[in-house]
């Protein structure tokens, strides 16, 4: 899976939780989940669970804490799906 496909999948995962439509429309690797998309911290746990389901992986707690932007999420996912 290339980055573009990954970002597409991530985009549909975070969509229900975002509170800033403009930032979502312009989502890129640099987009921050909290500062840009205004996702609340409880929803970040939901995002982690949705990512686990979508990619059939397990995200450790230390990884979830760092999964605060698109780039970090991609790094974590690609390190787990081979």
């Amino acid at each position, binding site marked *: 899976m290339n980055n573009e496909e990954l970002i597409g999948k991530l985009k549909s995962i975070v969509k229900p939780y975002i509170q*800033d439509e403009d930032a979502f429309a312009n989502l890129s690797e640099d987009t921050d989940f909290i500062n840009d998309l*205004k996702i609340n911290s*409880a*929803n970040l746990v939901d995002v982690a*669970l949705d990512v686990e389901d979508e990619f059939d992986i397990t995200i450790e*707690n230390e990884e*979830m804490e760092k999964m605060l932007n698109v780039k970090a999420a991609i790094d974590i996912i690609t390190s787990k799906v081979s």
Partner: protein
Amino acid sequence: MIGNDIVDLRLAKSAHRWREQRFQEKVFCEQEQNLITQVSDPFGCLWRFWTMKESAYKVFKQTSPESTFSPISFTCRLLTDSMGMVNFGSTQYKMQTFSNKLFIYSFCTDHQSNIIENQYFTIQEHKTKQISRYIYRKILLKIADHDSEVYKQMELKKNEHGVPIVYYKNKKLPISISISHHGHFAAYAIAASTKYFLTA
């Protein structure tokens, strides 16, 4: 430093995967998970824990801005219906909680701070930017003591780590602010250091 957090219970019920064991394992330590299953209101208990953890983290973040939130590392103990303790490393936060059928609200300070004001209220707006503006205005009016001349020279901005800072005539005020918003509810809390009270 001060931290507060509010959860809209109606939104919490539908918007999160809280019922799932995997959600709980990511957020709560074993003792907390056990208590959640034992109490008559697991849902209320779970979100009370959440607001406690988040409030304590908001206090911690103001002195460690680079830190990220690890909810499971903040462990909660309930003392009464409204009092609790949160432990994080060697630090202990004394927590107060108010809840009803609609929301749960918790707040705490560190040992060096006195609360000036904390308030929760309902929110009618829907756009996040409007909500922020509304809450910021409320906070600044409170700090300015509703003096419009003072208010005009005040500004509230989040720094690069998301910590809210109040400026008066472009100078940072030595007060701590915490803001929370979830669904139809919002809250803020203002505190100043004990030292500041002595010199003011």
